[in-house]
């Protein structure tokens, strides 16, 4: 029959590894790209991923020699002090990592899904869920990961595939990249994102198929690395190098760019993002589990008694760890502070230390091969600590549907976006939900006032409620005066004109024409790419009032020539 042997299969370990990494890496790595241009960062990315694979290879190599307990293994080779130090470094790594993950989760969720939610509440939710997952032990975690694996990965890969259709090939044209100290530094940062792989050595004795361990971890890390690389290529293709640098969360913005066939659901970013955030819960449960596991190892052998007490000790260590992380979360204050601390402490200090230890152990083990080893079995676990306490959160619910209005068009005239939106809201007795805007009509004057246009576009870029596939038009005062705020279906009319009124061939031509700076439909994304990537020219359609209604007259051309000259 089946006993509670507290072991997982190699397959489950693979799933755990992938889900632990995928959320953090897909959101974190593009953030690292913020300081360098796309091509340079591609080089850094490739270098960092190769380094990560090598590191994981060494972890896999070492894992097959770990018999009962990695702590005991280290003690046998490097001594008591080094074993404790390594455990402490890993504990610190996990602590800081989890604090950062909480901030990452809270920031992304607040930005894209729940703008009115308190970040502490989000972090508490993540920690609670993570604790619950960790409390099921390694078997429960393994099973959870095994079931979630396909549920998360397949939709994300589908998203990547359909996101690839929005690639503009000119952004992926071959070019040169500068390999400088910055490139190397960025590459190292990429590597540190995978720095937690060394923790697998503590889980190695819990894997029932140790002979497959190395292959499993390589496969898992390779899958994550490959996915991230592919995602990066798609992101550069969709947004361009500079566009990518300007986005705080390009992976999520890519999700909003995706158009799946069928047209039933308008935007898929909320759904895909929710799926991605599921991996954060898995990652949180992993980190909390590690915290408990590592912390209990600090208690002496005499205090570790029955298996039951060891389990309780770990539970209490996990709860205490989660509570401390929550306190650290609140203490760090903002996402930027947490990111800064994560970069300095984890990336520049703890990961190099732990990786160094791992490599040293690999060398020692290589030297010791063939010699008769004195195996020492390290005693495991326990002691009890204090109780855990989780905060109670409260926040308001969302707005009711009937308290909202859904304009399909936005007119931008007479000032910056704050003024425009404020004016718009003042005309309405209900909350204006801009999530369904199909078309934005700018006053022609914005074409001449480039700084104001940039400011407005940046505002729209930062606010995820404005979809990048909104159509953009210019219009003169006559046309704008005749379009009233209450014409809420006018935006749908404009969008449908292009969708239904234009033949397929014309649409294709229009896309080509737009690429060459000639006439055609222009979206917000196109305008932003033009701005960030300093393209030569873009022609934005112009709306004019006629006797019968409206028509699209000659476009207004915007160029980057003056700015380029200035540069």
């Amino acid at each position: 029959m089946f006993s509670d042997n507290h072991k997982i299969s190699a397959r489950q370990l693979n799933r755990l590894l992938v889900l632990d990494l995928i959320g953090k890496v897909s959101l974190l790595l593009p953030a690292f790209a913020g300081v360098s241009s796309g091509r340079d960062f591609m080089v850094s990315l490739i270098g960092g991923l190769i380094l990560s694979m090598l590191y994981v290879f060494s972890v896999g190599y070492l894992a097959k020699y770990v018999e009962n307990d990695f702590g005991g293994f280290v003690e046998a080779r490097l001594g008591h002090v080094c074993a404790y130090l390594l455990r402490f470094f890993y504990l610190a790594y996990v602590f800081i990592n989890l604090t950062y993950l909480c901030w990452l989760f809270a920031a992304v969720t607040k930005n894209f899904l729940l703008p009115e939610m308190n970040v502490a509440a989000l972090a508490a939710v993540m920690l609670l869920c993570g604790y619950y997952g960790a409390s099921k032990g390694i078997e429960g975690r393994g099973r959870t990961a095994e079931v979630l694996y396909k549920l998360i990965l397949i939709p994300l890969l589908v998203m990547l595939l359909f996101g690839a259709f929005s690639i503009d090939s000119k952004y992926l044209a071959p070019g040169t990249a500068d390999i400088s100290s910055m490139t190397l530094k960025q590459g190292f940062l990429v590597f540190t994102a995978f720095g937690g792989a060394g923790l697998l050595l503590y889980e190695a004795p819990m894997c029932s198929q140790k002979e497959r361990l190395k292959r499993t971890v390589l496969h898992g890390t390779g899958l994550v690395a490959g996915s991230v690389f592919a995602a990066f290529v798609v992101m550069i293709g969709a947004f361009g190098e500079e566009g990518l640098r300007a986005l705080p969360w390009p992976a999520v913005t890519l999700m909003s760019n995706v158009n799946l066939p069928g047209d039933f659901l308008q935007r898929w970013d909320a759904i895909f993002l929710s799926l991605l955030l599921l991996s954060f819960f898995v990652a949180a449960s992993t980190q909390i589990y590690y915290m408990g596991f590592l912390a209990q190892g600090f208690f002496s052998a005499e205090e570790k008694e029955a298996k039951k007490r060891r389990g309780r000790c770990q539970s209490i260590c996990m709860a205490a760890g989660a509570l401390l992380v929550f306190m650290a979360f609140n203490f760090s204050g903002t996402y930027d502070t947490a990111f800064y601390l994560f970069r300095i402490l984890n990336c520049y200090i703890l990961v190099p230390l732990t990786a160094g230890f791992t490599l040293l152990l690999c060398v020692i083990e290589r030297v010791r091969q063939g010699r008769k080893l004195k195996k020492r079995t390290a005693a495991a676990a326990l002691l009890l600590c204090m109780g855990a306490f989780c905060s109670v959160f409260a926040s308001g619910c969302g707005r009711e549907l009937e308290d909202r209005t859904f304009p399909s068009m936005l007119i931008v005239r007479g000032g910056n976006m704050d003024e425009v939106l404020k004016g718009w809201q003042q005309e309405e007795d209900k909350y204006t939900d801009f999530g369904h805007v199909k078309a934005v009509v700018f006053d022609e004057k914005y074409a001449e006032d480039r700084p104001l246009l940039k400011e407005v576009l940046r505002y729209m870029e930062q606010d995820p409620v404005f979809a990048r596939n909104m159509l953009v038009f210019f219009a003169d005062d006559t046309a704008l005066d005749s379009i009233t705020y209450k014409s809420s279906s006018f935006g749908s009319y404009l969008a449908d004109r292009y969708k239904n009124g234009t033949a397929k061939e014309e649409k294709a031509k229009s896309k080509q024409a737009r690429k060459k700076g000639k006439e055609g439909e222009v979206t917000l994304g196109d305008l932003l790419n033009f701005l960030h990537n300093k393209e030569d020219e873009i022609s934005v359609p112009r709306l004019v009032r006629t006797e019968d209604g409206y028509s699209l007259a000659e476009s207004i051309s915007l160029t980057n020539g003056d700015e380029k000259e200035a540069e």
Partner: protein
Amino acid sequence: MNEKAENKKEDPKAISRSLRDSEQILGKLCEGCDDILLRKMRLGQGEGIDCLIVYIETAVSNMMLQDSMIGKMINSLQASRPEEIYRELKENSLGISDAKDLMTMDEALAAMLAGNAVFFIDGFDRALKISSKGYPAMGVSKAETEKAMRGSREAFSESVKVNTALVRKRIRDTRLKVKEKMVGEASHTMTAVVYMEGVAYPSMVEKFQERLDSFVIDGFMDSGVIEQLTEDTWYSPFPQFQTTERPDRAAMAVLEGRVVFFSDNSPEAIILPATYNSLFQTSDDYFRHFGIVSFLRIIRYIAAFLAVSLPGLYIAVTNFQTQILPTNLIISLAKAREGVPFPGVLEILLLELSFELLREAGVRMPGTIGNTIGIVGGLIIGQAAVSANIVSPIVVVIVALTALGSFSVPSEELSEAFRLLKYGMILLCSVFGILGLALGWMLVLIHLSGLKSFGIPYLMPFSGNDMNRRQDGKDSIIRMPLWMIRKRPVFARRDNRTKLRWKE
């Protein structure tokens, strides 16, 4: 035999040779039990021998006494000489197949209370149990709660003997073991543990029997009590046993290496272990084409998802992530909600709770009234509520779809778990939107990952499929053709998993 006799002498509860003593003891014990009859008689030619027959009036009918084995035995003994009576009883030379010697008064009482007639003879140190028809019970009827398009229509009755016989009818093999046990200090309810020797893990059978022995209860009226006292995780709303009223389902489970538990007075058999996947399977899944079965299973899983998630999803997309739905739909929903006085969450909760009331009323009300309530509640009250602008029409549709989803789940117990979880999802989505839905399912998944049913992970084969070399995956959401399912599932002993072989 001699050892038994010697032991019997020392046992103070041993049956006395003196009928008077036995009569006194029985009289005292059965004082006030007017349904327990003590009939004295004198058998044999000449002076004869005093005898006493003890039985429960309704369990052993007078007709039976006349015409059955008991009656025939009495008639035969009546014609015998006294010295022959003892010999005939000792040697059971009358060939009464259901007769059994009882050595102690406790055994005699237990046998009598089980619905048998017990025969005491003056000068004889044993009592005789003559099996009778037993208590009044429903016979084998049609399956009411587990209807199937194909397959047997029989259902279990409330007699454990009949139920084990129904399984034996389908598995005519001596390896089918039936282990009987009395549970309940006052109820003395007969229970039976049925399994296939060589196929079921002995440790699983032992573990279940240990759990049965681990408590002492005064009595229980249904197998549901045993379920709750022997399950692994008491606080989980998910059933850790499967129940069935169908003999074919129980027989299939036995052939898979699972254990089936019956108890008297309960028409439901308990099957263990249970997995999440097994609760979505029905007996006629194996009697029909694999294509249609796979399609229906997918429908069931989707139904389960809807049963838990649909109300919460509605709250999430209307209160938080409105950008998901097309503009026309969202405007239409907003217009439909105009004038509704309640917030969306309250509206959903109100209607869900109203539906729960209707469901309860429909179950408790007899016959046609129950059906009428369904129609009245569903159509008239729902329509009236929409017309009065108390609720919006879309919420009625949402609640109806949720209910349909819940009814589509084959296992009633699993469906009840979903009913409870649905409210949790509503609350989470009302606070966290679509993230709440993801969080809710994450918590459910974590809970299910930690759940086990007698050592088998609850999420088999979705997790740990390689434990049985991925054979269990052939009979999960998609059911492969029967010729491809040659191995028993993971419940069966590893050395005896082949169930289908082709002849060369």
